[in-house]
């Protein structure tokens, strides 16, 4: 586990403990961070652009909210949150009558974004595809489609409105499609 993952663990665990005690601000912050993590986690494992992803993010947040007393402070928090998300994903597939195998040890991937060699290769391909875009659009696609930020969050990062981010993202995706079709 790298330094970034350990920092994240410490930060989220502290928020969870305060939230368990009824701290509203800590709880809001924890749920916001988790929503981004959940979005990335589900988006990677489901069809791109499926509306189910956001539904599942919300369901998982509700589960975290209603079942937070099942977190035992002597255990790692990120493993707990990952287990809840994984349960929700499997439950979703079961209801959708899809049989898939979710590896139980993908918690490392949950913590860090470049966990495996395979992912490194995917990352390199991704960089090549994204290289057709101008800098700002590239950052936007990364933030929204890969990191799982919302349009509003990504817009704030770039200093533009949600609407502007949406339009820019749409243009970028169009450019990307053309770029991929050409090669």
């Amino acid at each position, binding site marked *: 586990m790298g330094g970034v993952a350990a920092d994240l663990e410490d930060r989220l665990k502290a928020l969870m403990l305060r*939230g*368990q*005690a*009824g*701290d*509203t*601000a800590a*709880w*809001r912050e924890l*749920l*916001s961070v988790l*929503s981004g993590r959940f979005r990335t986690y589900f988006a990677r494992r489901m069809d791109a652009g499926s509306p189910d992803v*956001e539904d599942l*993010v*919300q*369901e998982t*947040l*509700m*589960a975290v*909210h209603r*079942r*937070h*007393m*099942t*977190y*035992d402070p002597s255990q790692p928090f990120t*493993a*707990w949150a990952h*287990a*809840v998300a*994984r*349960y929700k994903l499997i*439950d979703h597939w079961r209801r959708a009558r899809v049989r898939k195998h979710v590896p139980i040890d993908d918690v490392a991937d949950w913590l860090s974004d470049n966990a495996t060699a395979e992912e490194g290769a995917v990352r390199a391909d991704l960089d090549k595809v994204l290289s057709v875009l101008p800098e700002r659009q590239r950052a936007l696609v990364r933030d929204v489609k890969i990191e799982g930020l*919302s349009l*509003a969050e990504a817009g704030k990062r770039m200093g533009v409105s949600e609407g502007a981010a949406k339009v820019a993202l749409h243009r970028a995706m169009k450019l990307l499609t053309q770029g991929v079709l050409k090669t």
Partner: protein
Amino acid sequence: MKTEDLIEALALDTAPAKAVSPRLAVAAVLGGLMAFALVALWLGFRPDLAQAPSTRMFWMKAFYTSLLALGGFWAVERAARPMGSPRKGMILALSVFFLWVALCVWRFMGAAPADRMPMLMGQSWRICTLNILVLGLPILAATLVVVRGLAPTRLTLAGAAAGLFSGGLGATIYGLHCPEHAMAFVAIWYTLGVAAVTAIGALLGPWVLRWR
């Protein structure tokens, strides 16, 4: 509903929640009372209930089944959490069982051959296991309701752990009715009753414990 709005609504709803063990304790008390009522109204207390607590075997038997229940409690307390493992509690229950069997074998070898069959079969071997099963079921129902409100992710194991806990507690309460006092009898027929409730819990788990 937008996710940001949901987060805002949930944040405003924050409140400390009752921990896992007290919730399970509520199930134990409610289910235990139902099992106690079944003994009082249906099976009847053992006729020598007033004198029995002065015998060592009354407490040995209660100690054995209570330890099975304790192992079950520990197991279900863990298994009701995401990725929680009931292993330690189950190992405790199994160890207690094997220790009991070892004591039995030692006693059994010391007994006269003519006494051995009565030690095994007692007076009530036909009904003992079934009665423990019946007493365990209301406790199992209460426990499963509580566990469903928590967050088990391995549902068969969580169901089995709930069954072990309920069976152990049911068997302990059954001791108020059943006057059998041979260790070998308890080792076979009581344990079978607890195992039956455990198996039913394991079978029901994937159906009943699925939470949304």
